[in-house]
């Protein structure tokens, strides 16, 4: 990696973590284009992907050159949560991932927007976008959970499968001065309430510990991530030094 180091390394590390979250989830949502279950969702998923990509570009630009950072780092240098790199799966998996992550982003950006740190201006805009993303995921969680037997079973499977990736969101990130345990408490109030309203069972499995995901921020990722990066970076890497 040959990017210019930011002046403040702690803030750069935080910008990289948040930027990678947005970049990677945006990419996953981009994979839905042309595959969505209904045209309105083609629009909605692309819209969310675009918001996230916009956030990623601002955040990565705080660290260095956005394209060098996105296209020339290898898997071990990415700092995103493992949750956001999880494959789309079926629509329920995509919605569960979005519900968990948007609820987290909404709370985090809300707190950052209220502060006066370097992330406050970005967070002020992002929190509005994230409120929309969270609402979209909430409405679909209710529809799928409290829809048909099949949709409830699928939504429950998705929630159960992704639950173990949710503890990682509340590990403190260096350079972000927020009340992490307060965020987690608020998340653990809001998300289970949505699940209950959707007639779903709140998983009782672990959210932290050896068998849960927790090392994305340290550059340890899950197997599908490398393949995702191979696709994302291939063209850029094939033309070193080119501009697009």
């Amino acid at each position, binding site marked *: 990696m040959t990017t210019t180091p930011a002046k403040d390394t702690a803030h750069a590390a935080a910008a990289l973590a948040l930027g990678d979250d947005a970049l990677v989830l945006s990419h996953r949502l*981009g994979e839905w284009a042309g*595959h969505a*279950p209904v045209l309105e969702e083609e*629009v909605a998923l692309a819209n969310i992907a*675009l918001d996230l990509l916009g956030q990623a570009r601002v955040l990565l630009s705080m660290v260095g050159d956005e394209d060098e950072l996105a296209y020339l780092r290898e898997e071990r240098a990415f700092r995103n949560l493992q949750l956001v790199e999880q494959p789309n799966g079926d629509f329920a998996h995509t919605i569960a991932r979005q519900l968990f992550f948007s609820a987290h982003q909404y709370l985090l950006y809300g707190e950052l927007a209220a502060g006066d740190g370097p992330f406050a201006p970005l967070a002020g805009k992002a929190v509005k976008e994230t409120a929309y993303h969270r609402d979209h995921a909430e*409405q679909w969680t209710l529809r*799928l959970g409290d*829809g048909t037997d099949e949709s409830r079973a699928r939504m429950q499977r998705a929630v159960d499968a992704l639950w173990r990736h949710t503890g990682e969101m509340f590990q403190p990130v260096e350079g972000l001065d927020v009340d992490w345990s307060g965020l987690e408490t608020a998340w653990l109030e809001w998300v289970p309430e949505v699940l209950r309203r959707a007639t779903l069972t709140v998983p009782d499995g672990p959210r932290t510990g050896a068998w849960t995901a927790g090392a994305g921020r340290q550059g340890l990722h899950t197997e599908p991530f490398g393949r995702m990066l191979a696709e994302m970076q291939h063209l850029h890497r094939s*033309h070193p030094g080119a501009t697009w």
Partner: protein
Amino acid sequence: MATAAASDTAGSQAYDAPADDTAGYERAFDAAVAADERIEPRDWMPDAYRATLVRQIAQHAHSEIIGMQPEANWITRAPSLRRKAILMAKVQDEAGHGLYLYSAAETLGTSRDELLDKLHSGRQKYSSIFNYPTLTWADVGAIGWLVDGAAITNQVPLCRCSYGPYARAMVRICKEESFHQRQGYELLLALSKGTPEQHAMAQDAVDRWWWPSLMMFGPPDDESQHSAQSMAWKIKRHSNDELRQRFVDICVPQAESLGLTLPDPDLKWNEERGQHDFGAIDWAEFRDVLKGNGPCNEQRLTRRRRAHEEGAWVREAAAAHAAKHTNSETGAARA
């Protein structure tokens, strides 16, 4: 349309109108079209006018939806974040255009579900251009410049189409399309001025997309079965060949400023006509692609059907939830 005979008559009722009344409605309709008035959904209209519009608007909507595929093919490989954002926004716009157009078609008494069903079963077509593959990143630029350019040339006159809902949809769509077209041009320009490999990629894409783009204007005038009637009804304003010629004349100087060539040895300025002469189009290929034998016909329809089938449980869930919660305060039931 403000004629007394038709102003309070719903289109569906008109089918049952007695024959002697129909003649009166028809005169009023013809007069409205002649006076360049807009026909609106509740106005009486000839069955054939309605059928032609349903066919054309549906085909247009289907083209937006199928047309997402060749471009979405490159979203996950876009070589810069700026280009990725532009491409995602474009594909999103196309889904939006499909939605406007299905809504416009629905004002004629059909439904989106019915039209999608016809698309999936091959009973309605989409533009032949989307049966060509996007093999390199430069294809994204060539589609923007040439395919969207041809679409705009075709569609700007539709903003004055005699059927109001279609004309209004086209006004919105054309604005976004011209934006896409400029982005495609700008993408190709960046490649053309880039490394030799990038330049070659751009030229190769233009070589592959030029002729299929010319085919987007449809068969030559003497073979176009719907043209005369559509022009009489002011659905169409210009003939296929007229629009094709206009497009060629626009593209030639643009190709020059791009630093790229167009793959036609017969292309040259004709001083006498004040237009470009150009080579013969391979109409056999055009008919073959329309018949379903193009490079990607099978793949495009299969993908579209699969998205629809795999999404069935999601749509069923939304319907079941709405039925359970018709009085819900959450708003979910109405979404």
